C-alpha cells in the first residue's frame, strides 16, 4: 500500500507541472517526424532499403514517438540538481527505501503520463498519414513484447542511474549527460533503424545495450521479430540488465564512501 501512496504522491506532483511533460513529448514528435521526413526523401529514389519499405519505416518512426516517452528514463537530472547540488540526498538516505527504488518511483509517473500522451499523438498521426501498423500478433508474441518492454525500461533506468551517480565524483555531469544522449540517439535506432546504420556503426549498435531499449521493442511491436528472435532479445536484455545492476551496486557502494553533502 505504501508503494501505491508514494506513486500517487509523485503522480500528483507530475500533474501539477504537466505542461513540462507536454513539451518533452512535443520534442519526441518533432525529432521523429524530422528524421521520417528526411528518410522519405531517401525513399523517393528507392522502393525498399534493408528490408524496410516506406510504410514500415513510417510506422517505425511513429512508434519512435511512443517508445522514448515510455522507455527513455531521465533520473540523471533530478539526481544532479536535487540530490547533489541542493544536497537533498542526505534526507533520502535516511528513508527506509533504497535510493534506487526511490528514484524508480519518482520516474514511473512521468513515463506513464508521457506514454499516454504519445499514444494519443500516435493515433492522431495515424489518422493523418494512414495506419501503417498492421498488428497481427499471437498471444505468445504479445506476452513476450510486454517482457521486452519491462526489461527495456529496467535497462534504461539502471543505465541512467549509473550515469547519474557519476555526479558523486564530479559534481557536474551535464557534459556527460549530453554525450550519453548523443550516443543513445545514434545507437538506439533514433536516426534510422539499426540495420540501416552504415558499416561499423551497425555492428557497434548490436553490441551496445541501447538498441535493446528502443530498437528491439519497436520492431517487436511491428511484428518483425519471430518468437525465437524475441526470446533471443530477452536473453540479451537479461544479460545486460544483470551486468548493469552489478555495476550499479558496486558504483553505489563507492559513491557513498565519497559522498559529501554540499547543501548542508
Amino acid at each position, binding site marked *: 500500500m505504501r508503494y501505491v501512496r508514494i506513486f500517487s504522491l509523485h503522480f500528483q506532483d507530475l500533474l501539477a*507541472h504537466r505542461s513540462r511533460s507536454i513539451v518533452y513529448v512535443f520534442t519526441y514528435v518533432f525529432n521523429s517526424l524530422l528524421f521520417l521526413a528526411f*528518410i522519405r*526523401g531517401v525513399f523517393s529514389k528507392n522502393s525498399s532499403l534493408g528490408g524496410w519499405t516506406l510504410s514500415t519505416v513510417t510506422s517505425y518512426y511513429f512508434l519512435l514517438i511512443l517508445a522514448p516517452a515510455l522507455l527513455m528514463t531521465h533520473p540523471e537530472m533530478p539526481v544532479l540538481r536535487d540530490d547533489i547540488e541542493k544536497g537533498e540526498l542526505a534526507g533520502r538516505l535516511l528513508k527506509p527505501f533504497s535510493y534506487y527504488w526511490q528514484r524508480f518511483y519518482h520516474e514511473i509517473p512521468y513515463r506513464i503520463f508521457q506514454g499516454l500522451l504519445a499514444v494519443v499523438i500516435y493515433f492522431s498521426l495515424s489518422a493523418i498519414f494512414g495506419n501503417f501498423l498492421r498488428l497481427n500478433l499471437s498471444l505468445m508474441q504479445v506476452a513476450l513484447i510486454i517482457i521486452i518492454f519491462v526489461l527495456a525500461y529496467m535497462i534504461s533506468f539502471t543505465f541512467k542511474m549509473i550515469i547519474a551517480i557519476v555526479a558523486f565524483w564530479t559534481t557536474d555531469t*551535464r557534459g556527460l549527460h*549530453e554525450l550519453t544522449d548523443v550516443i543513445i540517439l545514434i545507437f538506439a535506432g533514433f536516426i534510422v533503424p539499426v540495420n*540501416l546504420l552504415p558499416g561499423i556503426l551497425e555492428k557497434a549498435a548490436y553490441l551496445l545495450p541501447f538498441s535493446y531499449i528502443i530498437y528491439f521493442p519497436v520492431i517487436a511491436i511491428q511484428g518483425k521479430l519471430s518468437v525465437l528472435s524475441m526470446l533471443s532479445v530477452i536473453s540479451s536484455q537479461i544479460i545486460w540488465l544483470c551486468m548493469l545492476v552489478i555495476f550499479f551496486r558496486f558504483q553505489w557502494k563507492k559513491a557513498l564512501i565519497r559522498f559529501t553533502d554540499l547543501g548542508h
Partner: protein
Amino acid sequence: MKHYFQIYLLLIKLNYRRSIANRADLFTGLFGSLSWGVFSIVSIYILSARSSSVFGWSRAELFILIGVFNIMVGSTFRMLFSRNFENFSKLMRYGELDGVLLKPLDTQFAVSTQHISLYVIIRAVIACIYTYIVIVQSNAVVSFLSFLSFFILAIIGLILLYACWFLVMTLTVWLPDIYNLDEILYSTDALTRYPPQILNAMKILVFYLFFPFTLVVSTPTKALLHKLSVLDVVILVGFACGLLFISRKFWKFALRYYTSASG
C-alpha cells in the same frame, strides 16, 4: 549605440572572468557542445548513407550545410544567445526581471545579452576547419563575392533565428512555470540543418509554421555553393525584418502583463 557597444565589451570581459572562475562548468559545457557538433555530422552521414542526393542536395552539399549549421547555429547562436533564452523562465519565475527593468538599458538588449558562452569559440574554430575541408573535398569553388554574400546572409540568418527564439520565449511572461520551453526551440533548431524541402515531406500543414527556421542556414549555404537566387535573398531578408519587428512589439506588449514573482 556607442554606449551599448561599451556595455557589450564589458559583458564579454565579465563572462570571460565567470568562465575562468567556474572551470568545471566550462569543460562540461564545451564537452556537451562538441558532442552535439559531432552528432549533427554523424546524423547526416547516417541519414544520407544510402542515397547520393536528397531533396536535390548532393551528399557533399549536405555536409557543407552541416558545417555552416555548426558555424552559425551550433557556435555563434549558442555562444551569443542560447544561454540567455534558457534563463528567461528563471527571470520570470523568480521575479528577477524586476532588476532588469530598473536598469537604464533597453530590456530586450539586457535580457538577450547577459550571458556569453565564450567556450563555444572552440567549437566555432573546429566547425570552420571542418567546413573548409568539406568544401575543398567537394571541389566547390568559393569566390570572394560568394563568401561576402554568405557572410552577410549568415548575419541576417542569425537575426531571423534570434527573432524566432525571442518571439517564442516571450511567452514565458504568461507561462513562467514551463521552464523547459526552450527545449521546443532546441528541437526546431534541428530544422535549420536540413534542406527547406524537408517540410514538404513532413506532410503536416502545421509544420509550415516553422518555415523560417529552414531559411537560416540553407540560404547562406546556397550563397557559398553559387545556388542563390534573388528570391531566396528577398524571402530571408523579409522574414528576418518582419519577425524582428514583430518580436520586439510582442515583447513590449508582454511586459505589460509581467507581474513579478508574486503575480
